[in-house]
């Protein structure tokens, strides 16, 4: 099997002793078909057991291995070493506090996810005896793309608005709210609109579009946010220009 010598500059930060981060240089022999996560695992196993990073599935499903790889937010389990020449720079996701080395604190994102009520809120409660909520394939397709999010936070690391204005609810959480708003079984849009149509919601977005460029699950959060802007503007016109607030 073909092997290659891989060089990495990895961001290190020890919260107990450091006041700033620094880069540590590693050189490690890797298989040609390995990904960046494999190189980190080999470093941890054979060179430096103190290196910290998160991962779980190694198949772009769990969303926990996000890192900046040469300045680009990437899933490290989905980023092939052979696509890089020279020294690969590995840093923790930007815009998130660094807990240790490549491990960031996702608390702000989790808080925002909770705020948008990412679950079905039925229009009227229906007893189980009345059977399931039915949905046509077309109704499913309407929102299906926005269900694909793996909560990897790459879009938050790519979004300069989130970096500059951390109260921005941000791409993934708003896309997930949009996913439920588009669901024919859901009746919770009004509740979610209060959060996502606010200033810190979708109107903080200036459509840089970076979120959709980096999303590994092809959710197209930028598209979702523009759709929410249009729907929210229509709400505003109905409320202010139609007699009776368009109700």
């Amino acid at each position, binding site marked *: 099997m073909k092997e290659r010598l891989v060089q990495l500059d990895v961001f290190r*930060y020890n*919260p*107990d002793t*450091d006041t*700033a*981060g620094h880069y540590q240089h590693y050189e490690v022999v890797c298989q040609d078909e390995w990904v960046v996560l494999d190189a980190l695992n080999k470093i941890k196993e054979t060179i430096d057991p103190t290196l910290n990073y998160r991962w779980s599935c190694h198949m772009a499903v769990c969303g926990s291995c996000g890192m900046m790889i040469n*300045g*680009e937010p990437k899933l490290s389990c989905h980023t092939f070493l052979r696509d890089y020449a020279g020294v690969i720079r590995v840093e923790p996701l*930007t*815009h998130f*506090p*660094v*807990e240790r080395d490549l491990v960031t*604190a996702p608390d702000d994102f989790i808080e925002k996810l909770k705020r948008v009520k990412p679950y079905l809120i039925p229009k009227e409660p229906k007893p189980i005896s009345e059977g399931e909520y039915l949905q046509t*394939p*077309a109704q499913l*397709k*309407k929102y299906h793309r926005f269900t694909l999010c793996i909560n990897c936070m790459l879009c938050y690391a790519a979004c*300069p608005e989130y*970096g*500059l204005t951390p109260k921005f609810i941000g791409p993934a959480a708003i896309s997930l709210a949009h996913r439920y708003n588009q669901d024919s079984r859901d009746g919770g849009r009004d509740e979610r609109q209060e959060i996502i149509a606010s200033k810190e919601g979708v109107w903080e977005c*200036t*459509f*840089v*579009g*970076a979120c*959709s*460029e980096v999303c590994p699950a092809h959710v*197209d959060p*930028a*598209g979702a946010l*523009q*759709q929410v*802007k*249009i729907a929210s503007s229509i709400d505003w016109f109905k409320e202010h220009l139609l007699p009776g607030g368009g109700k």
Partner: protein
Amino acid sequence: MSKPLIREVPPTSWYLRHPRYLRYMAREVTSLFVGAYCVLLVFALQSLAAGQASYEAFLVALRSPASIAFHLLALAAALYHAATWFNATQKAMPIQVGEEFVSGNLISGAHYVAWAALSIVILFLAGVF
């Protein structure tokens, strides 16, 4: 007590961090030209309202090299701005027919066609043809 490291975002130079941010800034800067052109139109109306002599002086000023250079720049900026806008329409306004979504290029393309048609009408009204 150990504490997480906060890495500040440079507030005035963040867009230098990645080419895609520079592309975004280029798009935003083109809107300044669109705005400047609107101001120019207001001046045109003002000089028209002030009578024939003033309007003719305005037309002479429009033929100056500086004005022609500005018009070329503003045209380039407006074209770029419009193209980014039309390309965005397919994301912002998806159309689902039955089960499938209409192709994004069709949605953006329809905007280009409408744009060309309206431009021809305006040029026609302006007596270009």
